[in-house]
């Protein structure tokens, strides 16, 4: 969808209204589908009893960042679609699985490596990156996510 006609032009009132229109379209086209997907996924995982198993698998990895295993599911979901991953984390917070500082560090972790397939088309292909560098970029994004997880854990321990 072409959003360029809603781009800011310098008139405060027009820009404000255009931005609002952009936001409404964004929710309808991107967010609601992502939310329906992630909430259905959570329900499926809960009903099949897979949730506890997956969180057990992720426990050692997420434990490095001071996070419970359940957040691993949010990370995987975030890898497909970052907003869905964030929504899952909010859900986990409401259920008391994670606390505020943990939610705060999940945001950079998920965004570092998130929406991988989408971003390949929207960033790497558009920027005309040589295809042989795609894989290094993925690896680097995962290493960055890992690094920020550790940094976030240290920051959480110091500040909160």
């Amino acid at each position, binding site marked *: 969808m072409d959003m360029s006609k809603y*781009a*800011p032009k*310098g*008139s*405060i009132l027009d*820009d*404000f*209204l*255009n*931005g*609002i*229109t*952009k*936001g*409404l379209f*964004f*929710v309808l086209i991107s*967010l*609601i589908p*992502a*939310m*329906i997907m*992630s*909430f*259905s996924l*959570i*329900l499926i995982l809960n009903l099949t009893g897979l949730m506890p198993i997956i969180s057990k698998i992720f426990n050692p990895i997420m434990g490095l960042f001071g996070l419970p295993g359940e957040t691993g599911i949010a990370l995987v979901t975030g890898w497909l679609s*970052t*907003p869905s991953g*964030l929504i899952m*984390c*909010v859900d986990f917070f409401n259920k008391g699985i994670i606390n*505020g*500082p943990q939610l*705060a*560090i999940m*945001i*950079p972790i998920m*965004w*570092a490596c998130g929406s991988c397939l989408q*971003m390949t088309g*929207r*960033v*790497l292909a*558009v*920027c*005309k*990156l*040589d295809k042989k*560098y795609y894989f*290094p*970029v993925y690896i*680097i*994004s995962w*290493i*960055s*996510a890992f690094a*920020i997880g550790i*940094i976030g854990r240290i920051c959480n321990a110091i500040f*909160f």
Partner: protein
Amino acid sequence: MSEQQINEEKKAFIEEQSHIKVKWKGYVYLLFAIIFFGGFFAGAHSWLKIFDFTTILGKFGVELRGTTGAGARDGFMFGFTVFPSVALCLGIINVVEGQQGLLAAQKLLNPIFKPLCGFPGWCGLAAVTGLLTSTDGGAALTRDIVDKGFISKKEQTIFTCFQYTASCGIGAPLSLGALWYPLLLSSSVIIIYPFLLVIVVKIIGANLMRLYCKYISKEFKEVNA
């Protein structure tokens, strides 16, 4: 296009990008955006409250989404409740962008890109757009620089990696802010904390690509030698 022509165009472009003129109101709007979305006045009791995003967002007054929901229906209702917050957020960002707030951010950040991330400062517009407003906007501006032949292949690789890592890492979580702002505030975590970490992630990503180009990539190793 001849090499000389490209060089001349590049020179003009760099000149233009390194000496961008920002009116004072650009800085005012940038400061306003940081205060408004940063939640600095969330706890204020006076009229200063109007400078806080969650305050202006207000309340529904009725419970739109219950607590016992699950599955696709619950997901839809959750999505429905974020309509006003995303709309308000993008509305304000659009105003700030239109009043040169983004340009001011670019001007302030330009000098630090080269030493900190390894790509030239005049890529700042693409970098700031990709970080603050939209992934696609940032990518399109990068494409423009690449197509015109202004950037070397090594710089392009580093810059693309910077764009990819935590893409739209401030703009996207910000537009979903209504979901998680109140949760962080209730656990007394400052709102800008995750955003600072996002910036750190971006710098780590760009620098890892720098190291990769320097020590691992055969193509660029030869260039270095």
